């Protein structure tokens, strides 16, 4: 089916656009296969608003005609012939912006809204915009992505003595959501891995995700073991974990579920590493919400933020009720616990929850930011995201199909990645000098993950990406962010590298609402951006003068 089949009305004149931070403007509205384009038609200005349809989370329409009759949808066909009829479309975006379009003509209005509804949630990945986006300064021949598991392994020389790169998954047959190459203990052969994979949900057997140079300890991640009600065991799995800690006396398993939850998980075939079979491993349980609970929390928070009434409205209580900040707190403190195991106690750790594609990735990423100075640079952070989220198989397509405004029935949506960005922002705020990137980068990523020109966040895993040719037919966001102009814009001018770990404070009074994201469409955020811009230009200017 062609895009044009979905577009009955492509152009409408004399549309009024109302958007936050701007006065209403009048102009032409144009719908294409992937974009909504509004061009102002007033003398002296040629402002344009280009919006990816993918960015639209919800659309509400109300039509009426000027004769004073409320227009019901069933009457639409009848009413549109009357002169003076008009409609209003409210567009709620995944970046939390709310736009309003006043469109003359009821039929045009309904056509436009139908087109947007259909085109904003196309299911077919290869019809999405990244497959059509062709900027002049990027070439499809460029390398896609910043690194590969192979390169990463080659660079990590310290690893080679005890760890090897296994290509047991090169055809994605062992674990469909893992990349073709993963790092595992030297002494564990591929046959063993295959057996371990059968014992872990979705085949996600324990793999190395971080090597702590200071003491040689590692972080592994996986999915839950499939012990089931009968307490099944898997010798190979036990062997693999034993190989991780080798001769050091113990390791920690951080399970992102409560001890109650893991008992329940056994009833449905899942389970946990029991003390008697894994006697060198000590389990720590930290219950982290995910999935629907997290999605509902986001919805409540956004609702509270957009309710801009000025009267006494118990804002802080609403903020608390949304529980978003307590999710931030749990994530940061669990990551802190993980980092403490590795950095302070000097033990290796394994992290998993259920599938090992959400909370596990979240806390592994945060722990690396806390401990590893390289991850705090701009390149390092992007490489970390690529390794721990894109390659490690966070199902972006499912998790980010809709955001806080959507009326669609939620299935797999969950703002785990947004929660990660919020946690990183809290780190950034608590350690304003220790991170090499700016808040602007986090905001950009928060947009891109929901609607993007680039292919980076498409699909659910590496296998899907290969099948659809994402790496050949789209451009990579991370590479684009490292172009000189972007690199300048997204780096932190006050950055001072520190080798030390950065331990965040996780008390509620130390955590704040990420105003820059959740309240970004109010004047304040706008103003703060201007100041940050000023700070940036000051510091850059100083550096320039100092060099002379």
């Amino acid at each position, binding site marked *: 089916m062609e895009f044009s089949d979905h577009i009955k009305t492509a152009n409408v004149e004399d549309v009024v656009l109302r958007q936050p931070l701007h006065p209403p403007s009048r102009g032409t509205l144009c719908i294409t296969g992937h974009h909504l384009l509004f061009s102002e038609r007033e003398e002296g200005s040629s402002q344009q608003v280009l919006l990816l349809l993918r960015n639209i989370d919800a659309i509400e329409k109300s039509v009426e005609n000027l004769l004073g009759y409320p227009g019901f949808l069933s009457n639409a066909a009848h009413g549109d012939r009357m002169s003076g009829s008009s409609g209003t479309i409210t567009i709620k975006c995944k970046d939390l912006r709310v736009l309003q379009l006043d469109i003359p003509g009821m039929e045009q209005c309904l056509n436009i809204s139908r087109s947007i509804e259909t085109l904003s949630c196309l299911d077919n990945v290869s019809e999405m915009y990244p497959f059509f986006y062709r900027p002049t300064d990027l070439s499809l021949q460029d390398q896609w992505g910043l690194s590969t598991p192979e390169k990463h392994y080659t660079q990590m020389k310290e690893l080679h003595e005890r760890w090897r790169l296994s290509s047991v998954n090169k055809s994605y047959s062992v674990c469909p959501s893992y990349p073709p190459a993963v790092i595992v203990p030297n002494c564990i052969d591929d046959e063993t891995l295959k057996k371990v994979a059968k014992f872990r949900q979705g085949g996600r057997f324990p793999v190395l995700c971080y090597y702590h140079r200071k003491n040689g300890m590692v972080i592994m991640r996986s999915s839950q073991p499939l012990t089931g009600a009968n307490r099944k065991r898997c010798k190979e799995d036990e062997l693999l974990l034993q190989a991780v800690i080798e001769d050091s006396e113990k390791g920690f398993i951080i399970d992102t579920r409560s*001890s109650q939850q893991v008992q329940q998980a056994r009833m449905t075939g899942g389970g946990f590493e029991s003390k008697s079979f894994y006697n060198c491993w000590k389990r720590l*349980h930290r219950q982290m919400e995910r999935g629907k609970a997290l999605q509902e929390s986001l919805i409540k928070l956004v609702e509270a933020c957009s309710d801009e009434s000025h009267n006494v409205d118990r804002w802080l209580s609403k903020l608390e009720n949304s529980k978003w900040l*307590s999710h931030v707190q749990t994530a940061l403190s669990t990551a802190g616990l993980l980092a403490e195991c590795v*950095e*302070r106690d000097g033990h290796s750790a394994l992290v998993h929850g259920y599938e090992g594609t959400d909370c596990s990735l979240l806390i592994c990423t945060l722990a690396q930011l806390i401990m590893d100075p390289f991850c705090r640079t701009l390149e390092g952070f992007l490489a970390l995201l690529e390794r721990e989220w894109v390659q490690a198989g966070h199902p972006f397509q499912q998790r980010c199909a809709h955001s806080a405004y959507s009326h669609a029935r939620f299935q797999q949506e969950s703002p785990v990645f947004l929660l990660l960005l919020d946690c990183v922002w809290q780190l950034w705020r608590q350690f304003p000098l*220790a991170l090499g990137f700016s808040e602007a980068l986090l905001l950009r990523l928060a947009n891109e993950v929901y609607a993007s020109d680039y292919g980076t966040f498409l699909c659910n895993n590496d296998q899907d990406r290969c099948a659809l040719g994402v790496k050949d037919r789209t451009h990579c966001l991370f590479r684009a962010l490292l172009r000189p102009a972007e690199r300048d814009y997204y780096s932190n001018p006050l950055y001072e590298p520190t080798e030390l770990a950065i331990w965040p404070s996780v008390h509620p*009074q130390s955590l704040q609402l990420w105003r820059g994201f959740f309240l970004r469409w109010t*004047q304040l955020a706008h103003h703060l951006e201007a100041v940050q811009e000023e700070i940036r*230009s000051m510091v850059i200017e100083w550096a320039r003068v100092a060099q002379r």
Partner: protein
Amino acid sequence: MEKKDGAKPIHSPWGSPTSSLSGSDAADSSAGSHVEWCKQLIAATLTSQISRTVQPDVLTRDSKISKRLSSWKSDDEELYFHEEYDLNFPSSALNRPTLGFGAPVKLSPNQVPLLPGETVQITVKDVMYICPFSGLITGTLTVTDYKLYFTSLIKESSFILDINFGAISRLETISVPNQGDNTKGIEMVCKDIRSARFAYKTDESQPEMGEMLSKHAFPLSYSLPLFAFKYNEQFPVDGWKVYDPAAEYNRQGLPNESWSISKMNLHYELCDTYPSILVLPNNMTEDNITQVASFRAKCRLPVLSWIHPESQATIVRCSQPLVGPLDRRCKEDERYLQIIMDANAQSHKLTIFDARQSSVALSNKAKEGGYESESFYSNIELIFLEIPNIHVIRESLRKLRDVIYPTIDDAHWHSAIDQTHWLDNIRLLLSGAAKIADKLESGKTSVVVHCNDGWDRTTQLTSLSMLMLDSYYRTLRGFQVLLEKEWISFGHKFASRVGHGDESHANSERSPLFVQFIDCVWQMTRQFPAAFEFNELFLVTVLDHLYSCLFGTFLCNSEQERVAKEVQTKTVSLWSYINSQPNDFTNAFYVDYENHVLYPLLSSRHLELWTSYYARWNPCMRPQVPVHQTLKDLLFLRAELQRRVDELNTQMPSCYPSSSSEHPVPHTRPTGTPLHSAF
């Protein structure tokens, strides 16, 4: 075990992995038991101190700056660098500059730093500090005439607790179980949120500790002088010269054809709570003015506070008219307001902002007070700002204190803050001030502001709106002028509201209105991070010395009283201290938004609790990185660059247009003004 990790390992709120049991969710989901937590806390803070010494660059940077600051005359520099770390009361958290300034700090025999004029009264050994965060700490308590100084050694690292007597609101004896019969306990509840408890052995040979503390904490109740009258530090700058009323009014363009600088109140005969110099309308005779004064509560007649440089619209402040239940009128008062209206050619209206709730204003009418009737005063518009009175604000802060100190309920932090209504009150005040500012700026209309007596809410409103309207008051010096003028000279009753040296803590006159005002200023600095020349440390320092009784700045209730007590000659001004080391109090990112009016955003989403002030005693509030230090270095760099630009300018005046001399950096100023739209 944890020797040299962590930039600043605060403590381990997620619970140490070694101490939790596998599989037992209950034990390790919370932060563990309180005692365990406290132990970890001490361990972590001690570690941080150890790790500080292994970070050579931090140390050298600290001393570099300190040396720069103390370069006036320091015979014995080492004395400045006593490393102190206090777990419970991290005044050092904000890198507070040492108070000992011109002369080197003297150390008493037992290593208590003393200010010039300060003397040790008694030293008591084996006193137990009952720390709310880490249990009992045994150490030595030294009492001077200015402060309590408690020191202890925990694992070879010193713990210091320093409370000045001015901060103490009340002293209470408490029971100390399990420590023997001759052990007494005392609790000091402080005005700045915290409180401290000590336990000590009673000893026949020593004077009663409770009584001695009481004498020093509340000297006025014992007919003794406040410490400010003993403190004799010499600063290179004289802060008493900061505010010269005539110069300030000249800066505003006064006198002019409508307004004159009057000496009618030179000896406080017109109004004893007003300053000696007032700006009054030209076209009124002295007799008429006296009649107007007698029609206003406490004779606080309408006088000019601020005039708009372009529109000539004015902010006029006064107290409520004495209308009474019989609807008394005063022709002179009506004419007076008419003249104020006429002095501004841009508008034919006058807006009266009554800070009170309209119901309160009405009930005041029954008690000889009241408000201006729109039928007697022509062309006026009366707006009630519905701001609650001093008692409500006092209660609100008391509730806030209960939420914050000593421990915070993590699970209900936000809703607990909500229930104190503190931020609601902040919002009401800011929005009232923004309405006044907007009336002047957009409406070009003169305003009259009053409440009951015109020394509490009125002062808050006029000073906040002036801060929004006039960029001069947003400088370090200008803000001092604003405080001296609107608060101190116009008779905000600091002595009664704060209760300096007075033991009657339950007095209904007490109210933290000045704290509320500074909080509003802080909210504005958050929203306009580059618009204020002073930084957060400055605001915290001002509030600390509101209570400390070290400086004379906030003593007494009125200018008249201050003159009678010779405050200016017998005490030191807070501004002497501040202005002797301005770098510490300067915002590195300050850009002079000259002639820009700042309208803060008033939605509760944009206000936040000032935790770095209210919750600063909580050990987890210590800042994570010394940002303050970096900002100070940036300031230094900026001054350096400015100097180089100036040099280049003098070398080649012909090549460089003069424009570059103002800022060393070509700012890419946002094209629009950095303003929020009104409301």
